[in-house]
């Protein structure tokens, strides 16, 4: 009942959601000379670093190495930026939450949507790399939105969890920062999954982001990555994450204001 109310409120406040997202995009690059171009330059430059450092090791095992890296990278950034920034979502908006009635889940939600917007812009450098490296696109390209929806749902669940818990325990923010670093190395962004030793393979198997990245690559260009397993596990993790996030948010929603 009260969940339905929150959804209805979020819909009522959709203009605010739009404003929060556009503010985030506008502000992030407002003071820089190249401005909005950074959205596209950023993944390109990081990809270049990975390429220079690691292509010597992995070029022979991974076909289309540049495409492999940048596709993994922008998927990773969609997840990591969204969840990392939203850890602070309630605390940075404490002034507003204290003064005006709002469906407060709008704050973590808007951060994840901003991250999604950035991802969409970074498709430009992705397809530029695909074009210049001569990678053959897959016929399954139309399924890409499905993967993006999955990682979005997954990120939203994590965001709700982290942002709610961080209000009560600030340490979560620092713990999550470190966790993200480890998580990135377990997500097969710049190396092939075959180099992971047998005893660590469980980590990868239970890493949802790895499944989303693999699936994204599988639908994007011609690879031998099998899809079924990633579809099933990816969907499972997405809904599990959202369920946990909603559960935690619901439980603590009305207490948040007293701890801000």
């Amino acid at each position, binding site marked *: 009942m009260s969940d339905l109310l929150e959804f209805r409120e979020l819909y*009522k*406040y*959709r*203009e*605010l959601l*739009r*404003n*929060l997202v556009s*503010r985030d995009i*506008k*502000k992030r690059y*407002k003071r820089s000379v190249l401005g909005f171009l950074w959205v596209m330059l950023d993944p390109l430059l990081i990809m270049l670093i990975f390429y220079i450092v690691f292509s010597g090791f992995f070029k022979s095992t991974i076909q289309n190495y540049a495409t492999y890296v940048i596709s993994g990278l922008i998927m990773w950034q969609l997840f990591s930026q969204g969840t990392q920034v939203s850890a602070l979502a309630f605390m940075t908006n404490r*002034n*507003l*939450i*204290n*003064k*005006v*009635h*709002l469906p407060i889940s709008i704050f973590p939600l808007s951060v994840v949507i901003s991250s999604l917007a950035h991802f969409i812009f970074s498709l430009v450098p992705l397809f530029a790399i695909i074009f210049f490296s001569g990678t053959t696109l897959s016929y399954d390209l139309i399924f890409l939105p499905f993967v993006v929806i999955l990682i979005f749902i997954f990120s939203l669940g994590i965001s709700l969890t982290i942002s709610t818990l961080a209000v009560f*325990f*600030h*340490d*979560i923010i620092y*713990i999550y920062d470190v966790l993200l670093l480890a998580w990135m190395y377990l997500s097969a962004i710049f190396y092939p999954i075959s180099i992971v030793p047998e005893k660590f393979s469980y980590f990868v198997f239970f890493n949802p982001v790895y499944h989303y990245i693999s699936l994204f690559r599988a639908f994007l260009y011609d690879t031998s990555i099998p899809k079924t397993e990633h579809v099933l596990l990816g969907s499972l993790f997405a809904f599990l994450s959202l369920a946990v996030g909603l559960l935690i948010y619901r439980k603590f929603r*009305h207490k948040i*204001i*007293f701890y801000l």
Partner: protein
Amino acid sequence: MNSIELQNISVSYRLVRERPHSFQEFVINYIKGKRTETWTLWALWDISLTITKGESLGIIGSNGAGKSTLLKVISGVLKPMEGRVRVEGTIASLIELGAGFDPELTGRENIYLHAAILGFSKKEIDAAYQSIIEFSELQDFIGTPLKNYSSGMVARLGFSIATEVHPQILIIDEVLAVGDAHFNKKSKERIEQFREKGVTILFVSHNMEDISYLCDRVVWLTNGKIQAIGTPEKVIADYLSVSAT
């Protein structure tokens, strides 16, 4: 017709003498068997209040008496631990300077942001946009980032937004005394118009002149309880005689 009904509202804040700020502290305290020492402060205790549509109600009391908490309960910011709240109609809050604004954005962008925070749709904001600018008299600055505004200008913009979107209930928490004399007069006139149009007004202030001028009825809060309720003359006189001692 009632626009706001409060039944036996109680709100408590859990104050902690030594709250664990980190997980580590929490674990250590837990292992040591040291529970954090807390005590409960009842910011509002068993408040029942009915506000009829079109009434303007003043809320007075010393600092920490529960005035702002009461407004938070009515506007839905806080969920009371006990009691029932029923509110009929759209609420606009004149919130404190800056809370709903972003200094990096222009006046124009801030109008949309601030009005959206108050829960208004794009269509409603579009419709009110022109008159918001006119009332605030900020035509020449509307494309300038808000960080270059003076605090009086920001207050003018805030007042214009909250009142131009035609709320049915207007909440004013000690923000009238901003802006210059000219704008002050204008904003009081506007509130006066709201009263005539039948908008319910909740007004918290320490300025007894404003209270007696604007309100039909006054509630005096002490330590989260209603000390007195009645006509402005009577309640304000009692309040002042107690505060003077």
